[in-house]
């Protein structure tokens, strides 16, 4: 291997490291930022202002919350299973950040280009249920246990049709590679042929990140804080940030699978805007939509949630799959 070859290898290696670090920092940072955006937007939609005191428009509220969480006593209950108690929030954070590795942000931006990217994403979100269950079980607390039970049942049942709703896209493209899925949308985004699949995936995504209206695992009014009742300080912070990263993940995956990823308009000066802008714009609008849904829909009863999943969403996903299969076959 000559010098030029070595330096090329080194530069791609360096590029990868820059990619990994930048995406990690950006994802975690924007997850923290999303907490402020959410509080601000919920305020606006409820005819209030939201946090607007700390810094310009209140953006430094995130920093203030962070300082507060860091300085809080990091308390582990004496009755808790210490090891599992500490591991659970780590898993919560790890799986969602790991799932972000396969998200193709733009050409040249993205951690890894897996040919089973979609499966990796589904696997990682499935592992998220362990964080909730471990946290709930290790807390040795009635509320936490009830929250953990709900979370396990909810996430397992919503995963089923989350996977099924994506199979339509896979059928249309014939690949699990997310970059190729984006390229396949150059003639038209998949949210038109796969509209039902998109809606189902969106609902499942909200349920996977257990946010209102599917926040039964942590329903404040019934279970104080559900599975993270006993958590405080930065361990709670990791659950919290993990939830917001998973919101971003759902929005990013929606963008990639149904809204053409980084593809933007190709006419006029708009063609010169970097593709990453279009990706962030689409994902941002979807995050706002998820916040809007949180601000407007009430939480269903637990049995209604299960019935909705198994009796409405799963058959709908099957029908969608069947129709797509017929169309592809013809």
């Amino acid at each position, binding site marked *: 291997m000559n010098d030029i070859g070595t330096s090329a290898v080194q530069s791609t290696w360096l590029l990868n490291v820059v990619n990994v670090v930048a995406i990690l920092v950006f994802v975690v940072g924007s997850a923290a930022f999303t907490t402020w955006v959410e509080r601000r937007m919920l*305020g*606006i*939609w*409820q*005819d*209030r*202002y939201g946090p607007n005191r700390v810094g310009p428009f209140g953006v430094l509220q995130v920093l203030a919350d962070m300082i507060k969480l860091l300085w809080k006593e990091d308390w582990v209950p004496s009755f808790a299973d210490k090891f599992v108690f500490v591991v659970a929030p780590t898993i919560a954070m790890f799986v969602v950040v790991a799932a972000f590795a396969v998200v193709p942000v733009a050409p040249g931006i993205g951690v890894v280009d897996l040919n089973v990217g979609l499966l990796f994403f589904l696997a990682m979100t499935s592992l998220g249920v362990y964080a909730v269950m471990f946290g709930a079980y290790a807390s040795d607390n009635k509320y936490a246990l009830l929250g953990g039970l709900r979370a396990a049942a909810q996430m397992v049942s919503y995963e089923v049709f989350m996977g099924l709703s994506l199979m339509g896209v896979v059928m249309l493209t014939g690949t699990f590679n997310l970059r190729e899925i984006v390229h396949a949308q150059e003639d038209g985004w998949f949210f038109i042929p796969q509209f039902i699949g998109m809606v189902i995936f969106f609902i499942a995504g909200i349920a996977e990140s257990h946010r209102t209206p599917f926040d039964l695992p942590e329903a404040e009014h019934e279970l104080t804080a559900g599975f993270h009742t006993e958590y405080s300080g930065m361990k709670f912070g990791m659950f919290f940030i993990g939830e917001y990263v998973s919101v971003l993940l759902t929005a990013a995956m929606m963008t990639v699978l149904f809204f053409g990823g980084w593809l933007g308009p190709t006419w006029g000066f708009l063609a010169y805007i970097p593709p990453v802008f279009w990706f962030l714009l689409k994902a941002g609008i979807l995050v706002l939509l998820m916040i*809007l*849904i949180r*601000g*407007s*829909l009430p939480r269903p009863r637990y049995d209604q949630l299960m019935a909705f999943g198994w009796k409405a969403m799963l058959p709908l996903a099957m029908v969608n799959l069947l129709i797509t299969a017929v169309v592809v076959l013809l």
Partner: protein
Amino acid sequence: MRILYLIYDYIVSNVKSVWDVFSHTFTKADTVEYPDEMPYLAPRFRGRIVLTRDPDGKERCVACNLCAVSCPTDCISLQKAEDETGRWYPEFFRINFSRCVYCGLCEEACPTYSIQLTPDFEMAEYNRQNMVYEKEHLLINGTGKYPNYSFYNVSGKAVSGRKKGEGVNEAPPVDVKSLLP
């Protein structure tokens, strides 16, 4: 058919909820940003309690104790005293605002319009003992909400050199020892 209608109804009602909330993006916030901007307080707002004076500048309170009796939290305490003209006045008048619930019953009970609640709620203190207001803190140099009222002018009681029947709208007292009507 009914099932289809129900599904339609669920979808429409949920989408409509989301749309209704979204439409609030462009409405004005109801928030009053309090320390920067003072909210409107009605004149009858029940806030800090004051003791008022009559139009002549003398204090209205006659130390009848009705306010202290009506107070549900027992936060008012006072001691009656009498001046040389036979007029009653409070020797001390003390309101413990850390117990007061601003119900306004003392104001309703007061026969002389002396005790009044005012539109002021900014009374926070770092030291709890500072919440106990004495007469010197309570007594103001004005008539409050009733500018022309003076109890002794209409009370029919002889006091401060004024005999019975010399007040406003008062008839001279009946001579009970006379047979004439």
